[in-house]
């Protein structure tokens, strides 16, 4: 008897969705199905298994307000010093330069990532860890610890990047 009831309810649900559905809704449902079954999961597995493939190079500018940024020849040491202070106050609870802490060690970051990517990771972390392949991978590698948005202004982020450049030049 129970089986019949279940069949009845299932049919009801099927009918009800059919009846209410319009093309827009169907599309949305398909999208969400795709999200779960193929895109996200597949991508993540792919990324984890072959970490060097998925856009892990200097051509990835990330997602966020900074579209292009060219470093000048030399290093602005005043800016770098300001950046060091901001880094200490806003970032050092999770990032060390020379060792992996909550987040990755930052030594060499200016050689690994594009200037824009670093800026966008600081300024727009919430979207980056959702959409950017490198950021997504790093979050998994960081034990799912998210990159916090510390509410920095663009010039503050830029001075932090200058500090990274100085550090990388010296180490």
């Amino acid at each position, binding site marked *: 008897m129970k089986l*019949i009831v279940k069949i*009845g309810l299932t049919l*009801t649900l099927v*009918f009800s969705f059919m*009846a209410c559905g319009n093309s827009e809704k169907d599309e949305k449902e398909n999208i969400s199905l795709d999200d779960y079954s193929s895109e996200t999961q597949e991508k993540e597995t792919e990324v984890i298994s072959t970490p060097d493939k998925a856009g892990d190079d200097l051509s990835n500018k990330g997602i966020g307000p900074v579209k292009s940024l060219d470093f000048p020849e030399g290093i602005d040491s005043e800016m770098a010093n300001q950046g060091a202070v901001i880094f200490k106050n*806003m970032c050092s609870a*999770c990032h060390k330069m020379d060792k992996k802490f909550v987040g990755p060690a930052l030594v060499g970051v200016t050689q690994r990532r594009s200037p824009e990517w670093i800026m966008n990771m600081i300024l727009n972390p919430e979207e980056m860890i959702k959409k950017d392949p490198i950021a997504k991978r790093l979050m998994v590698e960081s*034990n799912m610890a998210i990159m916090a*948005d*510390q509410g920095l202004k663009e010039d503050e982020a830029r001075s932090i990047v200058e500090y990274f450049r100085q550090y990388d030049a010296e180490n």
Partner: protein
Amino acid sequence: MKPIKNIIAALVLMASFTSCNQNKEGEKSGAMASSAAEKVYVSPGEHDEYYAFLSGGYSGNITVYGLPSGRMLKEIPVFSQFPTNGYGYSEETKDMLKTSFGMVPWGDAHHPDISQTNGELDGRWIFINENNTPRIARISLETFETEEIIEIPHSAGNHSSSYVTENTEYVVAGTRFSVPYPQKDMPINEMKGNFKGPLTFIAVDDKGHMEIDFQLDMPGFNYDLSHPGRGDSHGWFFFTTYNTEEAHTMQEVNASQNDKDFIAAVNWKKISEYVENGGGQKMEAEYVHNVFDHSTQTTVSTTKNEVLRVDPRQVPGAVFFMPTPKSPHGCDVDPSGEYIIGNGKLSSDLTVHSFSKMLKAIENKEFDGEAYGIPILSFESTLAGIVKNAGLGPLHTEFDDKGNAYTTFFISSEAVKWKLGTWEVLDREPSYYSVGHLMIPGGNSRKPEGKYMITLNKITKDRYLPTGPELEHSAQLFDISGDKMELLLDFPTHGEPHYAAAIKADKIKENSKKIYRLDENKHKYAALNESETKMVRDGNEVHVSMTTVRSHFAPDNLEGIHVGDKVYFHVTNLEQDFDVPHGFSVIGANTSELLIMPGQTKTITWEPKKPGIWPFYCTDFCSALHQEMQGYIRVSPKGSNTPMKWGLDDEYKS
């Protein structure tokens, strides 16, 4: 039988789902257009049109609701300790509850009133009075936090409060239980003529800071409620009185002997000038003024010893009594400022006084005797009209923007709409049950918004699922945009709301603060980054400056604490993103937790009782690694010499 029932249910469901597309068409025009559900439905993720601030009565707090949905958004702790976030427990906030009687951890919050500019709500602050240990608090509408509490000396039962004048020049406090002024030891039954009812005018500066300007030495009646004049009557304040009999016992009977009590009309502008020119006598007082400083994140408490007393008889033309029948309760002034409504709570009528007639009567000296030297205007001389047989037991009146007034009737349990000027009753709707206050957004200003009204009921009974003998009170939302009031929604409230105030959400939400900036944090013990974290011993006191970030404490291992120590945990939240608080709690703490907003520093104390390794942890689910956000404290026996050592990730400092 069961399967058949289920099949039927399934068919019903089918039918309902299949018809949903047609409904969409029908919603716009048919009967659905006036559905109450549709009017109060705010879709998930959408915002309400109004913020409503409901006093929490004996909870001591304010609750914030969205209208029209009736969704509770927040409880703001004001006069009561609030373990949810540590208000009144933390070192920074416990002095907010300091009074001349010591720390008073509870209060009876009554009448919230939003600050005004040019007679319109400006959304800067909300004031609320405490009835039991007389105080007034100011809450910032940027942070939704209590920033200031001032005690009212010489007052008892601060009920006719905390209404503000048209430009927030003053917020007022009154005395509902007349007392010796100043206090003294004397026989209770010698009350008559010897007790007083001081009315206190507190000046508010442009930062919101309150300072007592003067105290009006009024006869020993009970000053029940009040409202400011507005428009032409700006510069005046009106207070209802009862117990003009000055009965000291069995007031239930003895305070209802006189057919009429008074509405006191106070020309505060005149008294303000008098005081400015050196009028009034300084008298001894003892009261505490607490201000929370957002920069140091600490309460500064000051005890004051003096108040300026003004004898109303010394300021000609400053105070008059208008006779008002039947122990009036609510004292409400219409948006134009012309009509002053006395809600005679033991009557079925409402008495409406005219401000312009009052001025004429004063000019023509149409007096009908005096009370303790204060002229009593003749009843007829100020009377604008009477709303006849409107209901039983009128309590409070609010107004819309179309010349109508709405009065609650406690005994007949209804809200009644009537017309200003013609005094005719236009509509009545029952309110469930025994309605006290009512509120129309902007209803106490020059610009009320006649869209919604809420009634605040004293008795709940069967309105909700029963929850044992004790029930939350019930509020009801009405649509008042049409000719008839239409009941839309019931929603439970917290504590006992005495009055409420509401304002368009647009006037507040853009200014609502999201974080506290770390670079503005001037807390004495803040560690603004992990390298500043430390433990400092001073005798048996140990100050720990600690930080939080998703998802660890620094330090998370602490040693060198001994039984008998008093440990201060000063916890700074290093986050700078919206809605990322961290919590802090430690086993056996004889206090509350802390809930620390981004950029804030808060402190609790801990006096470990037993040696051992004791954990502490974050109480707010902050991240996927929240369960890992914990630490250990080593407590050694009293007198041992375990050195202080603290650190994170096995890197120690000492």
